[in-house]
């Protein structure tokens, strides 16, 4: 992960001091920064049918949001009623938000928007922050089924056993949903991903039924897809891990070679039945 200084350096004119400590989450920001609402809010300009809305007021650098928002003061609990509770600047060490805290932040943010149309516009803004999706990933096996819009989802697990996601859609509003979900889940542990419930994100709904499965509940479908694929990864990895981590205990009829625990024995029996050569550990 980039250092916080690198992430925030483009904002140097606004900073009185940005420092990096050995526990690299200590920042000080110029007070005027927080008084400038642009970087924290959506700006709804006057829109008339004759005058297209300006979108330049929406900051487009995702790194700023990604870095700043993930930290909070562990001594200062997040207030459910405070819409700014998830972003603080202080002098004490910061810690990454937990998954429940991130979900809460996201829900709070959307809940704080006074009009349903504001959620639409917020989602459209977040759609612009979604990383590009390789055209080669737009294949049938990556499609999220059951959506009225087209959604493609790629799931991977990195070497640190953290989940990595790439997603795209042909609908801008859906891309906005995807962007929010990626912010939640990309780089998270599988267990964290699986812990999120659809009800937790009901506040994100834009004019759609808040509960229950529906073709138009796209984000619901994407969330379920993310969790299903994550679960598959976990099961495969667990299976592989169990074959390598446990010492052989079961004797075979082929001699004195012994093989792993029950799971390993089961796997090996299945493989033999399939006609594959199975080599037990020596």
């Amino acid at each position, binding site marked *: 992960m980039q250092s916080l200084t690198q992430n925030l350096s483009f904002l140097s004119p606004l900073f009185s001091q940005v420092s990096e400590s050995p526990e690299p989450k200590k920042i000080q920001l110029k007070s005027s920064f927080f008084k400038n*609402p642009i970087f924290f*809010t959506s700006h*709804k300009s006057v829109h*008339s049918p004759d005058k297209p809305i300006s*979108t330049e007021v929406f900051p487009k650098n995702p790194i700023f949001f990604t870095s700043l928002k993930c930290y909070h003061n562990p001594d200062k609990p997040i207030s459910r009623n405070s*819409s700014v509770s998830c972003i603080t600047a202080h002098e004490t060490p910061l810690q990454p938000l937990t998954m429940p805290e991130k979900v809460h932040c996201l829900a709070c943010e959307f809940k*704080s928007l006074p009009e349903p*149309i504001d959620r639409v516009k917020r989602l459209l803004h977040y759609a612009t922050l979604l990383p590009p999706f390789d055209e080669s990933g737009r294949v049938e096996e990556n499609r999220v089924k059951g959506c009225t819009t087209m959604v493609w989802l790629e799931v991977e697990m990195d070497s640190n056993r953290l989940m990595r996601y790439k997603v795209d859609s042909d609908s801008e509003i859906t891309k906005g949903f995807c962007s929010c979900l990626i912010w939640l889940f990309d780089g998270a542990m599988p267990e964290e991903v699986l812990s999120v419930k659809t009800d937790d994100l009901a506040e994100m709904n834009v004019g759609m039924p808040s509960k229950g499965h529906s073709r138009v509940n796209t984000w619901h479908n994407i969330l379920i897809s993310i969790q299903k694929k994550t679960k598959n990864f976990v099961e495969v990895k667990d299976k592989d891990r169990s074959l390598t981590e446990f010492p052989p205990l079961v004797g075979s009829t082929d001699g004195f070679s012994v093989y792993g625990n029950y799971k390993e024995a089961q796997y090996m029996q299945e493989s033999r039945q399939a006609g594959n050569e199975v080599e037990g550990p020596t």
Partner: protein
Amino acid sequence: MMMASTTVESAFLKIPSFGFVNPNNATSKLVSRSSVSLRFGFHFRSCATSSASAAEPASASSPSSVVNDGAKLGPGSLGHITRPDFPILHQAVNGSKLVYLDNAATSQKPTAVLEAIQNYYESYNSNVHRGIHYLSARATDEFELARQKVANFINASESREIVFTRNATEAINLVAYSWGLTNLRPEDEIVLTIAEHHSNIVPWQLVAQKTGANLKFLELTEDEVPDVGKLKEMLSKKTKLVAVHHVSNMLASVLPIEEIASWAHDVGAKVLVDACQSVPHMVVDVKKLGLDFLVASSHKMCGPTGIGLLYGKSELLNAMPPFLGGGEMIADVFLDHSTYAEPPSRFEAGTPAIAEAIGLGATIDYLSGIGMERIHDYEVELANYLYNSLRSVPNIRIYGPEPSRVFKRAALCSFNVEDVHPTDVATFLDQQHGVAVRSGHHCAQPLHRYLGINASARASLHFYNTKEDVDDFIRALTDTISFFTSFK
């Protein structure tokens, strides 16, 4: 991603919120209930009415004034006059006046229908066909009267040719499983079009799998209508059933059913028509069209959800085995076998949707009070206005035929906006302007695939819509396109 709650906001200019609109407001001042009636052609069929089901539009019982036929969409149009009968239309959605343009999905219900249902539950709710007490007798009478009204409405020979189902989908499944499993053999053919609703495709796929029959699909012409010319060539001695829509819920095209039925019968095939998008909007005469089966849904014709109808010729229904088993559809039940009732009871297992059937009867009274020809004439005008208005919006692609002397369009338009997903369009129309349209594949995925698109938006009208609804929709759509264009 977290934003502070204090925002620098400016109000987006929007249509002023009307809040709850009084049905007697300025819009309908010209056509208040007490002052206007219409130069309607009352096209009552000989359906009896009862105190429970008197459902003429309030406006129709008022003193006469002349409707200017030359300006059918102007003040005093059918839409303006009937709107007060539909309480749901007079509300604000997301701060804007509701503009309901999703009638192909489901229609709104007039007060007369709502009152009929409420009256049933308040006055004589009881199970039908079973009890001998007063309430049961009255409920049975009203239930069977509703059946008779439906029969009259589509000019069936007798009420026994009308089977009440849950909806048109169930009606098609009934024919598929009851008639289809009995009559279809391997290599037999069922002819459909690629523009069919899923409800008129999937049941046939299921039955074809079981029987070994084959499905053949008629494609579209360059005008985006089913190629009726090729349909005749597709028919052969192998064809056992032609199952087609009357009016397409996406293309708005109208098939020449009378011709199609004639060709089908020439080769010995039966004809089933999905009339969901036609029965609510025009005169449908099953005898004139020469149909063997017809299905329709109450909820698309200003009636309640939960009830649909299957019309079947008597001789066909008499020969069909039961679909669902249980009470009501039997004659005698023994431990090892049962005998079955005559149609329509044979196909109505269990307690029926009694209130809904009575509501459907009230609906037919209401529609008949206006006149289906009157409704159709008005909607043709509105359809043309919608099409021409939508066509004037830049970067719009409308699907289906261009209206002409040859091609008549129903009052709906499926469309796409260049570079803007239809779901995004529909969401913004709803959230910013209170305009209700549909987005998706409209239960016509094969048709969308054929047209090379994943989804489309659809605006669909009914007789209670007005020219102003269309104008509001076009304004809102223009604003929506402007928003997404500038956003990108």
